[in-house]
């Protein structure tokens, strides 16, 4: 028994070494940075230890804007993308003909190059000397006036950001949900039909509970993914997200380290740990909620 566990640790060793070097050590380092006041990376000196960095970050209007943007993004995109993906998956599950074709179409964005995706969004939303973008063409056709989605009002930019995020995560969610739906025992549906359940009741009382573990999985990973959003925003609005008012928390951390006004690892660390605390709290709440629903 003891010998076995020694062997087990030996097998785990490579993974443990990697984890400690690249995950655990940096985590502690970030914690230390975040409490060192006035740390200078060039001279490796600091004045003292305390909560000053946190106070600074929490009062920084750019950080508050980033928190607001991130939360709006999370609260809108996670439910919308999960809900729409569920609707599409249910549709896919109930059609017989052309199912494979539709499945491929819905999955295409997942295997498409990011640059190509960016191009599609340019065509849809971006104002160029030649056109106002496809969406504006439609708006104009219905008699509306042109909206600048990339450099215009806050809500328009937020709309593009949410639209993009939902669109990008959709294929994965559809993939997960269609396979979850396909794995529900068909006899259950037959039994429910014989038992006289309406299709809505079959959905609510059988389908939904049967796939709820997968839905919770998608919600939790969706939350975490949306909180980590950054690169997509850069792809749409450029690198100066603060100026565009579209920064996210991860974007703020990055700017504090490497941005034009960067070079503040302590502020970056404090912001990163605040994000960590937020994600941890929300994931715990999610897990508790999922446990409650699956037990009852």
């Amino acid at each position, binding site marked *: 028994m003891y010998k076995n566990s020694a062997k087990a640790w030996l097998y785990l060793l490579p993974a443990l070494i990697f984890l400690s070097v690249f995950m655990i050590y940096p985590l502690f380092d970030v914690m230390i940075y975040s409490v060192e006041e006035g740390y200078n990376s060039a001279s490796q000196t600091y004045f003292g230890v305390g909560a000053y960095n946190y106070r600074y970050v929490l009062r920084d209007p750019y950080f508050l804007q980033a928190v607001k943007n991130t939360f709006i993004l999370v609260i809108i995109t996670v439910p919308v993308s999960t809900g729409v993906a569920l609707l599409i998956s249910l549709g896919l599950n109930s059609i017989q003909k052309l199912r494979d074709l539709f499945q491929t179409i819905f999955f295409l964005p997942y295997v498409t190059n990011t640059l190509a995706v960016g191009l599609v969004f340019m065509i849809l939303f971006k104002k160029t000397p030649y056109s106002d973008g496809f969406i504006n063409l439609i708006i104009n056709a219905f008699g509306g006036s042109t909206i600048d989605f990339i450099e215009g009002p806050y809500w328009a930019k937020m709309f593009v950001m949410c639209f993009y995020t939902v669109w990008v995560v959709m294929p994965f969610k559809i993939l997960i949900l269609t396979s979850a739906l396909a794995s529900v*025992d068909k*006899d*259950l549906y*037959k*039994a*429910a*039909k*014989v*038992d*006289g*359940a*309406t299709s809505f*009741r079959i959905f609510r*009382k*059988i389908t939904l*509970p*049967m796939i709820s573990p997968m839905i919770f999985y998608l919600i939790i990973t969706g939350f975490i993914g949306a909180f980590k959003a950054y690169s997509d925003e850069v792809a749409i609005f450029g690198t100066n997200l603060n100026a565009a008012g579209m920064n996210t928390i991860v974007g703020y951390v990055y700017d504090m380290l490497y941005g034009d006004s960067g070079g503040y690892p302590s502020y970056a660390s404090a912001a990163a740990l605040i994000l960590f605390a937020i994600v941890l709290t929300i994931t715990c709440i999610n897990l508790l909620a999922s446990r409650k629903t*699956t037990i009852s």
Partner: protein
Amino acid sequence: MKIVLEHLTKRYPNRNKKIGGFVVAVDDFNFEIPDGQLIGLLGPSGCGKSTTLNMICGLETPTEGKIYFGDDDVTELPPEKRGVGMVFQSYALYPHLTVRQNIMFPLENLKGAQKLTKEEMERRAQEAAEMVQIERLMDNKPSEMSGGQQQRVAIARALVKRPRVLLLDEPLSNLDARLRLQTREEIRRIQQETKITTVFVTHDQEEAMSISDMIVVMSAGVFQQMGKPQDVYDHPKNLFVAKFLGTPAINVFDGTIRDGKLYLGDDAVMNAGGVEDQDVYVGIRPEGFILDDDGPMHCGLNRVEVMGRDTTVVSTHPSAQSDMIRVIIPSESRTAALENTVNFSLKPFKVHLFDKETEEAIPFLSE
């Protein structure tokens, strides 16, 4: 509630698109299931038993033909309007619901005038649970119970709406041997208590013979024979039915009728009056042989298996279609002296003759 099937036919488009065309799962069924009886629908895998049951249930629509419950034409009715209860091989219990919730599920779906109060539902669920003796497990989840218990829950759920017809599709196939015996007795008891017309699908002939009032034998979508289990066993209408019923299986020989006698090879083994001279298949049940030193049937002896009450004599015969024939005789028989060869005489009512072309049974007189 008697069930009448009239020209019932189901054709599926072939699953293998390359071959195309249609699979005839059920081919022109015409028979009547009497009220209050337990019918065993019997046949090998893939012969269309489930399809037939699903059409009676309303889960599948027939390609042609009609289904009547009593005098009502139910062909076009959805399952919930037919008053049927169904039990599946996989149990099909809702895994996230407790036993109580599973049993109450059909009641909660009732609408309009049929709607029940919460207390009434609880009472009916309790009643159904007591019927199958699982009332102490009402708050368990299906995953916490044995296969046999789960199948009882499924039966309770099928009975709770007090259906006119109970349908069971291979309900015992997922159970181990001991539970299978126990549960089949249980199904028999419940059927006799409730007097619900019941159709029980199985590929296991012993299972069907042991609990059914009547059996219906089918093969490759085609109806073969219907009758009391013993009658069908004693008077098979064709070679398929004779081979399908009985363990060990019937022994089949190539024989010839000449001058009112049945010949196996050169030996006249039995009288067969009233039959024209012709080649025939001869089916002899394992219990149709009598150990007899002067008997007309000469077999090579392979081995003797003594198993308590019965003794099996495994032997060979040149006219037999299989390498070995199995003969069952009482254990008191004196087999010790046997060496190399063994002779038998035959019990005529255990011998069946079949036409070489049609494989239909040929009646004969043994006196």
